[in-house]
């Protein structure tokens, strides 16, 4: 008889290794979505137990208690209590603990027990605990807590075998009648009593060595040094951006020549005409010019995931707290803002860790100013076409330096906008508290990182395959129809719908140095910033014929002045050109108004920055 799907839920404090356990259990069989009505990320994965039971496991947001003081924590509470909309009550709750740090998890577990859900305490990272000389009397702990306890090493092959066996054993005899739920929010004195109880149990069952993790102490001595720490942080960011620009080049060129070859193949095999033009100019050069940026996106996520897994992100927040505080930002905003370098959408969603509404709103408003990976294609294209690839001061790549400058401008503008918001909107206010655990450093694990990168790369490619592809088809259509009258000598695109739209917008954009081709490219760029590159490619390909399609950069170098190129870079630092980001802002703030504010202020800044850049450049002779 086929048993029904077994529903597991992972609960734990932040940094308990919950996510690496989730990855170890499910591998790449994961589904990421949102809980209905809120933008809390819902991570579900699937696996089969040794006895053949099909299991669904949900990785719930990390929390220190069931009080639910943020949307994330409310989800965890409601899910465990079976109150989350559209969710099944979990059959079994896995409470995940970092074995080197049991105090806070044992307290959480004592609170969780009151919900009456069947539960297992998973002592994760048990290898690290053993290495540090921490010994746990597992049997006694289970007896004291009244909950089965199992050890696991999520990052090692076979490290979850005991957990799987226990899951089988427990699920075979799970009671079907509903259990008593006696949970209610704890008062301060109950909370204190629970922590006392937890400390008593730990004193009875766990022996701790006197010395803390020496490696963490040694690294922190440098990394959290008031001055040295900031230097290290700057170096890390600098290496990250040099890497994204320089190291990704070989892989990108490989991809590019692959797409070029494919385009030539299509050109050689198909007869000249609409189908050939559609495949070569619309599909291959359009989608190809976006997919080429996959190596850079993988690199930036690699850095972010590595720093996160290593435990550095919390340190960065610590270092930046007061400095960002000067601009009216909370230290916790650092992580969402850093994620926004990959994409503003996860960044804006990550602002949920900021529990103060004003701090959160400010962070949401400025997150789109962080240079997201979708801008990289635009920046790269223009930089490689207009900025010479020479070294300055012997070792710094000039192109990398310009890239760094663009990122820096984004950051400085974000801080300035935040300062203005603080000044005008939020007078006389007490800063929200900054309280954050600084976890011990851990060696990042390849498998976890690989799964993380794989999920993100898949999302990017899906976007390239759907949104970007359909936009490219639309652009190709606009740029190809109506067809030029027979016998005309001018480029075909001059007769198209795209030219009409572009030329209608051109007078508005002329003061900032944009021609009508750019105006055409900016429209589909609303769907996703990187589409602008492909759109430029399509527009110039159809205009200039086959040779042009192969080297967008070289074409731009001949068609644009340096002033126009610089103006375009300035535009892209600020332009609110991403419909998905705007949609997320609306959802997260629950207001069309804030979305409108974001759109307007960014557009105004973009126009002003381009206007200034263009005119200064022209005045300096770059027109």
């Amino acid at each position: 008889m086929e048993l029904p799907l077994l529903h597991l839920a992972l609960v734990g404090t932040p940094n308990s290794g919950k996510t690496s356990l989730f990855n170890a259990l499910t591998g790449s069989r994961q589904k990421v979505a949102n809980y209905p009505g809120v933008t809390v990320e819902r991570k579900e994965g699937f696996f089969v137990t040794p006895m053949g039971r099909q299991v669904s496991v949900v990785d719930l947001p990390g929390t220190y208690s069931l009080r639910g003081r943020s949307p994330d924590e409310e989800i965890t509470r409601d899910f465990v209590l079976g109150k989350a909309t559209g969710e099944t009550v979990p059959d079994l709750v896995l409470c995940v603990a970092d074995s080197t740090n049991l105090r806070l998890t044992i307290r959480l577990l004592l609170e969780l027990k009151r919900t009456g859900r069947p539960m297992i305490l998973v002592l994760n990272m048990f290898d690290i605990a053993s290495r540090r000389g921490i010994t746990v009397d597992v049997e006694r702990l289970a007896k004291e807590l009244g909950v089965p306890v199992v050890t696991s090493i999520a990052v090692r092959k076979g490290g979850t075998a005991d957990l799987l066996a226990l899951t089988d054993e427990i699920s075979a005899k799970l009671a079907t009648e509903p259990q008593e739920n006696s949970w209610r929010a704890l008062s301060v004195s109950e909370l204190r009593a629970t922590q006392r109880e937890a400390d008593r149990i730990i004193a009875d069952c766990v022996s701790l060595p006197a010395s803390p993790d020496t490696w963490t102490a040694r690294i922190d001595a440098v990394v959290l040094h008031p001055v040295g720490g900031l230097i290290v942080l700057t170096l890390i960011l600098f290496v990250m951006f040099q890497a994204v620009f320089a190291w990704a080049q070989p892989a990108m060129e490989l991809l590019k020549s692959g797409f070029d070859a494919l385009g030539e193949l299509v050109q050689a095999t198909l007869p000249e005409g609409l189908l050939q033009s559609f495949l070569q100019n619309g599909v291959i050069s359009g989608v190809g010019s976006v997919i080429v940026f996959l190596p850079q996106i993988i690199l930036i996520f690699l850095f972010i995931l590595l720093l996160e897994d290593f435990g550095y992100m919390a340190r960065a927040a610590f270092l930046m707290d007061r400095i960002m505080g000067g601009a009216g930002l909370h230290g916790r905003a650092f992580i969402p803002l850093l994620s926004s370098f990959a994409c503003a959408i996860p960044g804006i969603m990550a602002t949920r860790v900021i529990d103060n509404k004003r701090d959160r709103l400010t962070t949401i408003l400025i997150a789109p100013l962080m240079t997201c990976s979708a801008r990289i294609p635009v920046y790269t294209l223009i930089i490689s076409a207009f900025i010479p690839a020479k070294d300055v001061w012997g070792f710094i790549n000039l192109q990398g330096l310009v890239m760094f400058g663009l990122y820096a401008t984004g950051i400085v503008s974000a801080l300035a906008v935040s300062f203005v918001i603080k000044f005008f909107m939020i007078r006389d206010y007490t800063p929200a508290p900054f309280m954050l655990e600084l976890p011990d450093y851990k060696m990042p694990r390849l498998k976890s990182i690989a799964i993380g990168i794989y999920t993100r790369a898949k999302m990017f490619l899906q976007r390239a395959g759907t949104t970007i592809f359909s936009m490219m088809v639309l652009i190709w259509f606009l740029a190809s129809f109506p067809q030029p009258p027979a016998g005309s000598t001018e480029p075909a695109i001059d007769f198209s719908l795209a030219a009409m739209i572009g030329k209608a917008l051109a007078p508005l954009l002329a003061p900032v140095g944009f021609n009508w081709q750019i105006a055409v490219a900016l429209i589909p760029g609303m769907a996703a910033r990187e589409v602008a590159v492909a759109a430029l490619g399509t527009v110039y390909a159809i205009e200039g014929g086959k040779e042009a399609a192969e080297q967008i950069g070289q074409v731009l170098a001949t068609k644009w002045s340096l002033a126009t190129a610089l103006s375009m870079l300035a535009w892209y630092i600020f332009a609110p050109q991403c419909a998905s980001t705007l949609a997320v802002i609306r959802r997260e703030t629950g207001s069309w108004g804030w979305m409108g504010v974001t759109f307007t202020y960014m557009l105004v800044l973009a126009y002003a920055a381009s206007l200034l850049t263009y005119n200064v450049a022209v005045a300096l002779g770059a027109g």
Partner: protein
Amino acid sequence: MTDTTDTRSHMPLGLAQRGYTGVIQHLAAKQAGSALSDVELESRLIELGFVEGARVEILHEGLVGRDPIAVRVDNITIAVRRREAMAIIVA
């Protein structure tokens, strides 16, 4: 508390220097001037392990105003601003 052997006077952790070690005597959320309500601040401090009897040590300080501070609480490290640390009375 019944800690009669301690000759040092009680002080808020928020005033302590880097390198300070001590034991938490009690929590006084009212003294902190935090944006959080007293109950909320006290709850959060307890949830991060700041309970009576816990050993604390200030490991690191930030650059601006020597704030925030990284505090070792028994065997974990918590970053907290001095403003909130005023609620933690140590000796």
